[in-house]
């Protein structure tokens, strides 16, 4: 009997028991879907969370402080800093030229008085313009908001300020807490207008210390958590620089603590997690202290790998269980079709003809189930990706992209077919060895 004839015979047999075959195929399809979806999501997580973010994202970010490195702290994620050392544009350009550096994002900070009309704070006993508790000191952090995806900033409500805006800010839950606003009510602050003041110290005509404020009004457009540098206010570079420059132009003898470095720090994105250590070393060679969560990332990477292995294992177990379903269905078929097999042999079928017919049945169930499962699994992965995308884009981050993992799909179909063949082997052998006398037994 040719393969084509065996296939035709197997197809007839499959079509004869549509209910049982459909259930078996569904079981295989569900297992294959589980397998495909899990592996797709795991590999997407691996690719997106680690590789994609690492190659130009916050995880591969190195914070550069306006301070010299402390030689005793090299290699740690958060080293103590050495003596202050201003970061100027020349230093920025030099660091940008280092091997392994993808992007250099300057960070500007400005010490800022925050006056929030209608709100009082209990953590400041100083008398402000409107009496005790009417203002707080905090740090405004200015970053290039056009490259926010590269920075460790997470938006939890509202939106980010427009790049270049001098009237919009985001605030952190820490700042809100100083006004007694809990995190769960943080979103209600969006839309509020606050007054922001930068102080410049100078000496009066009589030699006394005098401070003059530069006041602007800004609207809170979002709530963020950020780890670019410490500070409760996130704003555009231009708004922050205006405050910074106002303060820095003061008399150092009056306000010696004012940050006069053009940049408070840098956020350097390495081209990959693997080059983070070498980039850190190079930046420290330039003379600046750095910090990066590289040890933490290495741990996360290991955990993600473990999760990937576990998910793949669950998928394989599901496929194995489904293949037992195939074996069970075929064993039942052999039991039910003893007479039919006997007839086949009585009219001249060889053992291998019967074996071939049953193995084709198993393979067809495995292949069809695998194919349906792959399509279903990829669809599930896309649905999950759409949900994740919604979250990521709301955070101002780039969404994940689930491609069409052709290799995984083909491997799943082939794997399901091979497992089905393996599962079908015993029933098929049993069928092939049935004696021809079954044809005459009642």
């Amino acid at each position, binding site marked *: 009997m040719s393969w084509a004839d065996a296939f035709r015979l197997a197809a*007839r047999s499959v079509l004869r028991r549509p209910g049982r075959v459909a259930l078996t195929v569904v079981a295989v399809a569900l297992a294959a879907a589980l397998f495909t979806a899990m592996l797709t999501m795991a590999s997407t997580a691996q690719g997106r969370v680690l590789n994609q973010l690492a190659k130009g994202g916050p995880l591969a970010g190195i914070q550069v402080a306006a301070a010299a490195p402390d030689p005793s702290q090299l290699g740690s994620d958060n080293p103590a800093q050495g003596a202050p050392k201003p970061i100027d544009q020349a230093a920025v350009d030099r660091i940008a030229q280092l091997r392994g550096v993808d992007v250099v994002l300057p960070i500007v900070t400005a010490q800022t008085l925050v006056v929030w009309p209608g709100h009082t704070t209990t953590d400041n006993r100083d008398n402000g313009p409107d009496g005790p508790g009417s203002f707080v000191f905090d740090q405004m952090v200015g970053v290039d908001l056009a490259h926010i995806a590269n920075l460790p900033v997470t938006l939890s409500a509202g939106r980010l300020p427009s790049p270049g805006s001098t009237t919009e800010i985001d605030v952190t839950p820490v700042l809100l807490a100083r006004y007694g606003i809990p995190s769960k009510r943080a979103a209600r602050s969006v839309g509020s207008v606050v007054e922001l003041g930068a102080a410049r110290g100078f000496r009066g005509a009589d030699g006394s210390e005098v401070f003059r404020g530069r006041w602007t009004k800004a609207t809170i457009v979002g709530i963020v958590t950020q780890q670019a540098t410490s500070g409760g206010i996130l704003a555009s570079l231009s708004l922050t620089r205006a405050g910074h420059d106002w303060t820095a132009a003061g008399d150092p003898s009056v306000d010696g603590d004012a940050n006069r470095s053009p940049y408070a720090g840098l956020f350097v994105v390495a081209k990959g997690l693997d080059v983070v250590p070498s980039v850190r070393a190079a930046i420290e060679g330039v003379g600046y202290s750095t910090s990066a969560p590289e040890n933490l990332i290495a741990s996360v990477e290991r955990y993600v790998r473990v999760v990937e292995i576990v998910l793949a294992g669950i998928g394989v177990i599901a496929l194995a269980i489904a293949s037992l379903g195939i074996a069970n269905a075929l064993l039942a078929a052999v039991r039910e079709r003893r007479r039919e097999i006997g007839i*086949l*042999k*009585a*009219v001249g*079928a060889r053992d291998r003809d019967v074996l071939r017919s049953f193995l084709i049945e198993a393979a067809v169930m495995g292949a069809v189930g695998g194919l349906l499962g792959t399509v279903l699994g990829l669809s599930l992965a896309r649905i999950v990706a759409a949900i994740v995308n919604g979250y990521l884009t709301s955070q101002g981050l780039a969404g994940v992209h689930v491609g069409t993992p052709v290799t995984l799909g083909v491997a799943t179909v082939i794997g399901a077919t091979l497992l089905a063949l393996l599962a079908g082997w015993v029933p098929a052998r049993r069928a092939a060895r049935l004696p*021809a006398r079954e*044809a*005459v037994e009642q």
Partner: protein
Amino acid sequence: MGTMDRDQVRSLARSGAELLHPIGVALHDPDGVEVAAVKLSHAYDGPTGEVPVLADLTVTVPKDGYAALVGPSGAGKTTLLSLIGGLERVQSGTLRVGGHDVAALEGDDLAAYRRTTVGFIFQNFGLLDALTALENVELAAMLAGERPSRRRTRAADLLGAVGMTPRADHRPGALSGGERQRVAIARALVNGPRLVLADEPTGNLDSDTSEEVMVLLETMRRERGCTLLVVTHDHGLARRADQLLVLDRGRIRDTFEPDAVPLGS
């Protein structure tokens, strides 16, 4: 090639006229085989030990012969037929069918013997429910590895010869008992066997249909020249054979010539 429909077969059978209508497509020159069993013994495993079925049975059916095997239930008729047909392995004794030492055949050789030398007709028709009448007939040729177009043509011709052309596309479940047995006869002939074994071919049929089926079988044997061995409980049917073999307790008790059958014995 001419064909007979059901009414023609019934009419001819009732008239007693000699059927000269050609049936089937000959694959080779009509030529039967001799069946020779010597000291054939066979036993099955039972719950309390071996159950002997055949005991030193010796019998010969001549080439192109037509033998009817009769006997009480449990006498070993179906077992003997199964041994001759290669459905059962020979345990003891010798069994030669034409040039084949059946006891020595195994594996693919045994399958080839069943496929090409023997045509088997079962009491329960032995048709596959998933296949149409045409496909059931085609099945034996398919197992022989014949090309689809050729085997389909031959199967259609054979179905026409047994008057089943209008029902060729029906599955067995949609056919009457007589129609099923006609399909089974066509299937038994599709590979041009030299020995046709029929196990109670009319056991599930009414008397009219039994008559039709036997007319078909006899005509086939006459036209094709093959050896025909029929197991039956029907003495009327048995009388039509050239040789009547009475089997009892695993042995051939009597052998009768035509017209010498002591009916009712």
